């Protein structure tokens, strides 16, 4: 196979991707920048996007919060010499599952019908929130 050979593009893989970066102004906690990407103009309203992002940030903030539930869970795990972590999910993991369900629901009801798809940040190592524009290819 020569280096210059271009394989036939699949319909969904060659799409334009927008990356929403992390917002570090409040520290290292997981939070995404609430900046409306100009590429979404015409597809998704600014208020809708803002609402989705605020909800996501809220879910992540809840996962990272120093609540009494988190303290109790950690202390209990410590007392069992951390063997408890072999049996149960941490609160953070439960919150991430909530985020996943929220993104799936948003994709189904709001985004995919308008030709946009959100990728769960967990699939990208919580570095970015990837938004794919489904109907447009970026001629690679």
């Amino acid at each position: 196979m020569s280096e210059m050979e271009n394989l036939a593009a699949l319909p969904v893989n060659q799409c334009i991707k927008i990356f929403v970066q992390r917002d570090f102004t409040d520290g290292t906690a997981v939070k995404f920048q609430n900046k409306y990407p100009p590429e979404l103009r015409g597809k998704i309203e600014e208020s809708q996007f803002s609402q989705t992002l605020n909800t996501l940030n809220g879910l992540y903030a809840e996962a990272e919060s120093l609540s009494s539930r988190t303290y109790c869970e950690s202390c209990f795990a410590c007392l069992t010499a951390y063997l408890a972590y072999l049996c149960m999910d941490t609160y953070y993991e439960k919150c991430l599952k909530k985020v996943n369900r929220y993104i799936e629901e948003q994709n189904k009801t709001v985004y995919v019908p308008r030709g946009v798809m959100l990728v769960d940040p967990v699939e990208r190592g919580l570095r970015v929130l990837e938004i794919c524009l489904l109907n447009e290819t970026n001629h690679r």
Partner: protein
Amino acid sequence: MPKKVRKWEVFPGKNKFYCNGRIMMAKQSGIFYLTCSLIVVTSGLFFGFDCVYLAEHVTPAIPAIGVALFLFVMSTLFRTSFSDPGVIPRSTPDEAAEIEKQIEVPNTSSPGTYRPPPRTREVVVKGQVIKLKYCFTCKIFRPPRASHCSLCDNCVERFDHHCPWVGNCVGKRNYRYFYLFILSLSVLCIYIFACVLTHLILRAQNDNFLNAMKESPASIVEAIICFFSVWSIIGLAGFHTYLATSEQTTNEDIKGSFTAKRGQDNFNPYSKGSIIKNCMTVLCGPTAPSLLDRRGFVVPEVSQALVVQVSENPEKEHNSVNVRHEYYGSTNITNQKTNSTGMNTADDINNESKNVAKREMITYQTPDGTVNSKLPPNSDIVIPITSENTESGTKGEKTVVSRGCSTEY
């Protein structure tokens, strides 16, 4: 039917994996076995010799406490050594392309005004200006407090240090286990030492001290091991207590990131303000799961063929790599494994039989001191070179290896 490959098998860092991806350690883990055996042997001698005497003559609570301490020490040691320290997965080619685009554009605008050196980004964290550095290996801007470990070839969140004694990096996800390990180990050391002395003194009451030592030579061995190791362990425990209460990492402390320097109003933006709150955050705060998904299956490419795509068209993005990937759970499989000297590993030799056009890798040293190798860049791309930056930009050229073809699974 191609064999299913788990993501740990194609992990680009230098870590070693055991138990089908459940256990993750650094490449050189010999000293970890030394640590383990020292603790197990000393404790074994303690339970076998001193506990027998002390349980009879003093109280059976002594071996009970000893067992609890020993189990806690081993559990925290294993947690520290075997878990993911907080590795940040490397960026996908699309992300890397996007970042390259963003870095290039500001340099071409407004000549004559001061602009920060490329490959850094400034953010304001709670009022303190923090510089984010670009990692050439992982192709990401490192989040605050993250650092790249050259031994493991990974970026690690809240990087503390790479500890050869536990055979792993110490980072965000395993710092509390590391801290509790050295704390409980110092308690165990002191406990064994005290029990050994008690044992010998009790024996010496009936006889003289020399005969007591002859009757129980194991106690001497334990006493020597404990005596020589307790100073450094207690020192380390004290140092990390200071770090935990001031919410700093070893890395930040050594660099002096948050001390008053250059007359600036430097403060630690991550500190919660009080010692108690900082300690609680470090020890009892939320634990993020591993971002690596080591045991997940690699989503196979549509075609089993191997593709090296190089962009010839100047209209395309200069970092174009035609690596196809599925939407969810995609893994971009790279074959960019480097050994400690930065040359290709033997795996690449196998690839020649799979029709991969192998190009000569060049070895370079990145500004943060890590040695890596990469494919040479395209000649039509011009990347500005600064005094800090000795390599001409990174390219996302990767060999997509569908490891399902590999016969060495």
